[in-house]
């Protein structure tokens, strides 16, 4: 004889994890097909960040350090794209580096996708004059330290192997003190913490940061004196897109993320309700 079929509540207590997987998957995929985007309440840190961007004069010399790799890209790439869009809008002269080996590649992709925006369709960007990608250097915080005294010896050649002396944008750039502003997008070590400790504290960089959600708690104490603004995780990226007027991937992703998040919450509720209901019955 088969065992008696367990009651509905008992089954709700032991939902197969694959059922949960399906719900999560659907919740994340579905919103990708629509261009709905929810308006989000903007946190003060992101508001500060956008204001700091706006305050930088047009045509300023800005350092972009992208310190992450592809696994963290879903959260951070939209930030980088928006930061580049703002840079293009304000005609920044952009110097790109990475303290992570894959950072410069991510930067390249982000800049390319920023350029695909309607607003910049007709923009002619000249490599070496309007922007430069200096690539990756190993050494973590030592790289920042060295850039504080001498950038041309820290990055003797750019990403493509061209000596920096041959790049017009690099003329007159000696060290970190030359930059008017800095954008750091980071997924951990080395990243925002090191830039704050070595770049901001020692060489007076004016800097904003984009961080993964997990890392945000660690770096949020720097906001104010050492960081002019901070965006954390997908939500921070979406707020940044909304404020800067460049709605993009993050705002779209946010919807799915929120829905999936709510589904996790619902499953926790279901589990507990079932648990309490069945427990009461046994007694």
């Amino acid at each position, binding site marked *: 004889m088969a065992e008696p079929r367990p009651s509905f509540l008992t089954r709700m207590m032991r939902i197969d994890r694959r059922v949960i997987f399906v719900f999560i998957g659907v919740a994340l995929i579905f919103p990708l097909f629509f261009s709905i985007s929810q308006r989000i309440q903007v946190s003060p840190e992101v508001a500060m960040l956008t204001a700091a961007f706006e305050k930088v004069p047009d045509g300023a010399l800005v350092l972009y350090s992208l310190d992450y790799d592809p696994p963290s890209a879903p959260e951070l790439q939209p930030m980088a794209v928006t930061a580049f869009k703002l840079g293009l809008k304000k005609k920044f002269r952009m110097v790109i580096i990475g303290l992570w080996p894959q950072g410069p590649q991510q930067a390249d992709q982000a800049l390319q996708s920023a350029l695909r925006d309607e607003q910049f369709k007709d923009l002619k960007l000249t490599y070496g004059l309007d922007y430069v990608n200096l690539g990756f250097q190993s050494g973590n915080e030592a790289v920042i330290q060295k850039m504080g*005294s001498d950038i041309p010896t820290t990055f003797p050649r750019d990403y493509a192997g061209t000596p920096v002396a041959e790049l017009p944008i690099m003329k007159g750039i*000696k060290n970190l003190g030359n930059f008017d502003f800095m954008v750091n997008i980071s997924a951990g070590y080395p990243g925002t913490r090191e830039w704050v400790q070595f770049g901001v504290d020692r060489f*007076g960089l004016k800097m904003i940061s984009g961080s993964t959600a997990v890392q945000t708690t660690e770096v949020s104490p720097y906001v104010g004196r050492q960081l002019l603004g901070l965006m954390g995780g997908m939500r921070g990226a979406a707020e940044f897109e909304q404020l800067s007027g460049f709605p993009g991937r993050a705002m779209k992703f946010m919807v799915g993320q929120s829905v999936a998040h709510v589904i996790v919450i619902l499953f926790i509720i279901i589990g507990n309700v079932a648990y309490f209901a069945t427990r009461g019955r046994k007694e």
Partner: protein
Amino acid sequence: MLSGLACGLLLACTALAQDMPTGTGSPDTAAIAAPVIAQVPPPGPATGVTATDAPNDDGEALIVSWTASPDDGAGLRNVSSYRILRAEAGRPSGAPFDTVGLATAGNTQFIDGTTNPGRDYIYVVAALAMAPTPGGAPVEVSVQSDPSQPVHSRAQWFHTGRLNSLFAVLIVGGAILYFIARARSGKSLFIRKIGGLEAVDEAVGRATEMGRKIFYVPGTQDMDEVQTLAGITILGRVAKVAAEYEADLEVPVARSLVMVTCREVVKEAFLNAGRPDAFNEEKIYYLTDDQFGYAAGIDGLVMRDKPATMFYMGAFYAESLILAETGNSIGAIQIAGTAMPAQLPFFVAACDYTLIGEELFAASAYLSKEPKLLGSLKGQDVGKGIILLTILLGILLTSIGAITLKTSELDKLGWYNIGQWFDVQ
């Protein structure tokens, strides 16, 4: 601006020069004729340039400080940055000054970290302004200060900023060593139960009964992580129990140095358990150094071998939950231990027992019951006691200070704030 010229200082207009050439004769004060752009007013110079030895270093740095140009943030407000120039004191006359760095406007200090101990240096600080030119790139206009007195950098024999750390090391280390010595002299020590470790025997026994494997993951980091060493020490005890129960222990690792060490430890454990013949080196093997590659490998192994028991002891990153959820899905007993604060929540949620932080380091002592190791646990407790008392004292003092001064800002509490003793340098 006029005052700058009146000071008899050098005025140089150079288009974005890196090294500033100086004239012949008395090079520090000689003027070079400015070739262009007379209509741009140069900023006033920085004054009072001094250099002093940077403290607490290996003698390869000097601190250059100056008084800001009158046009920095005031006056003409046109100073954009300062260029710091250096020359060796005994150089042949006419030798150029080298640029050692730039400081943005508003700064009055620069640390030159490229000096040679024992050599004398002279510094000059040039105030820079960017002058627009009609139809061309902006040109840099600069005014140099008087040179500083010659100075040399020195290495120090003690880092005074780290006196507090020295005390911390001496107190904590002293307490630990004292109790180790006491334990060795035969004093018996009480050690409380650690839940996860009480379960080791049971977990190993269960695997034997079920005729299934035991997987032991000594973290995913290399030997330069103390947690890995703690994990390997615990592996030694687990291996001994496994040898006694004749259980099948398997250790897939992510670092080859860890593999080598684990082999030594497990071999020794089997020897101590009196079953050296049962030791099989091949059971301890390397998968890949890669974080997620390793996780993928373990997941596959777990699904295929369905081990009865899984241990995760050491340092973990995001792979913690990937491993623990997969282990959980096949119903293995899971005992985890890590000192990675960010990963603890995941182990707590997905494992049966979790050694939290310090418990991981206490585990080897607890399992071995060796007096010297137990003594070190007692020493750790004394360390914690001292920290507790210090915090208590600090809170009392700062609170008294706060009540008296009607402020809770630490900066304003003066000596009441003993937290400042613990500044880390």
